[in-house]
């Protein structure tokens, strides 16, 4: 019988085996799927990932170099302004005896590969444990939150974006301080769902959504996006809130990763709560006001930063 199947009906037999294996994997528990994927990735895909990183860096190096040159001059000016603000901030904190908070650094990294899957959901960046980037760190761009580091090698890190089922974020409506949990679910991507918000709460289309800091990973106040749609769930108890992310995940190329540091500086979340100001305006603001904030989000690369009073954690 088996001989007949393999010799006379090889094509159908192979198809049935392939489909059975695929369906078996699909029916595995999520954790077991992750473990199988992890094992296969570190045996089958290791050479490929190295090649991808090398090619992407080579392809991107020309236009990246051009962009970096033009940004360098601007960043130098902004860096000088930021230095002044940082010193001012340290002085003011000492004066006010602000409570001790854990300091953070921001590490700049480049995206070297994206998920092969149609829906995306992950990125690979060129910084790893050797640069202080460890699993669980928050990853963002000047536009807002990107996701979190999932696993790291010495020189590479896989980042789960908000468009991944395994990357839920404790979020908050900035205007009314209502807390919920932001999750991606397959559907009209890249829209995210803000869950567990009572139907009594005040949420409107256009409200800004930021990280709430409830947990352990994501600092408080990082912009996530804006409310695109508000409706009631079928039983009328909770609101169904769709959030339009601030970050364009398809085109993100340079990102920032929070890492612990002994340094102290401006609160990173503040960088994402205001629209960027011109460098000249920032200069005058730094001179005039004790509450002045960095001129542009790009400064975050150079800035040291502080985490929230309460930290985030991975929801799942």
């Amino acid at each position, binding site marked *: 019988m088996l001989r007949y199947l393999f010799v006379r009906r*090889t*094509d159908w037999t*192979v*198809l049935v085996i*392939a*489909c059975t*294996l*695929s*369906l*078996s*994997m*699909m029916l*595995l528990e999520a954790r077991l*799927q992750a473990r*199988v*994927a992890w094992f*296969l*990735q570190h045996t*089958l*895909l290791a050479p*490929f990932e190295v*090649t*991808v990183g090398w*090619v*992407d860096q080579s*392809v991107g190096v020309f236009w990246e170099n051009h962009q970096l040159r033009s940004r360098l001059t601007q960043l130098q000016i902004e860096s000088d302004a930021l230095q002044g603000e940082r010193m001012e901030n340290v002085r003011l904190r000492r004066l006010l005896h602000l409570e001790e908070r854990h300091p953070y650094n921001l590490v700049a990294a480049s995206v*070297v*590969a*994206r*998920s*092969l*899957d*149609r*829906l*995306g*959901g*992950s990125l690979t960046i060129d910084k790893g444990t050797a640069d202080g980037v460890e699993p669980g760190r928050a990853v963002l761009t000047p536009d807002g939150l990107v996701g979190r580091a999932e696993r790291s090698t010495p020189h590479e890190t896989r980042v789960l974006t908000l*468009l*991944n*089922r*395994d990357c839920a974020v404790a979020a908050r409506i900035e205007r009314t301080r209502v807390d919920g949990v932001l999750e*991606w679910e*397959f*559907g*009209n991507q890249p829209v995210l769902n803000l869950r567990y918000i009572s139907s009594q709460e005040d949420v409107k289309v256009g409200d800004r959504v930021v990280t709430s800091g409830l947990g352990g990973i994501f600092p408080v106040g990082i912009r996530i996006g804006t409310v695109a749609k508000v409706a009631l769930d079928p039983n009328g108890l909770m609101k169904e809130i769709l959030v339009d992310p601030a970050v364009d995940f*398809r*085109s993100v190329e340079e990102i920032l990763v929070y890492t612990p540091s002994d340094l102290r500086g401006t609160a990173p979340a503040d960088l994402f709560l205001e629209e960027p100001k011109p460098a000249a305006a920032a200069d005058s603001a730094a001179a005039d006001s004790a509450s002045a904030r960095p001129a542009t989000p790009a400064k975050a690369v150079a800035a040291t930063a502080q985490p929230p009073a309460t930290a985030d954690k991975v929801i799942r």
Partner: protein
Amino acid sequence: MKWVRDGVVLLVALVLQSTVLHRIEIAGARPDLLVAYVVYIAWMRGPVVGTIVGFGVGLIQDLDASVPLGLNALAKSIVGFLVAKAGFRVHRANAGVRFAFFFVAMLVHDLIYYAVATDGDLATFGKQMVLTAVPSALYTGVVVVILLGIAEAFSRRPLLADEV
């Protein structure tokens, strides 16, 4: 020798898919070279190889996907098998036939993929098929036909020959 060439083509397709193709995305549609690769292999090497390669390539995609592990493998296994069965003794050198095969194969792939990924939500499924699957299939068909034409211009023999 042909296996080495196929391996190199797969490596190039994987690298291009994850590093370059997002730069030529148009309104959310981008070419899927991995489906195209499975179609090419299945067409040239038959249903057994097509199914196995489809399963392997799909599994590689699944390792880095947010959809259930095995979904891409399932979709590409079936596409590999069907293409090899349907593409037997057709005029493969014809650009129109090539386009039609790659286009339909992409649609079949996305039909399976989105049917499972949307978890029975017909509205989302329909929307994904219309807004993502069809434009991506058209885009893939055009890009692959052009790439094959360019590759064959530098090759001594057709990459998709008529004989089996």
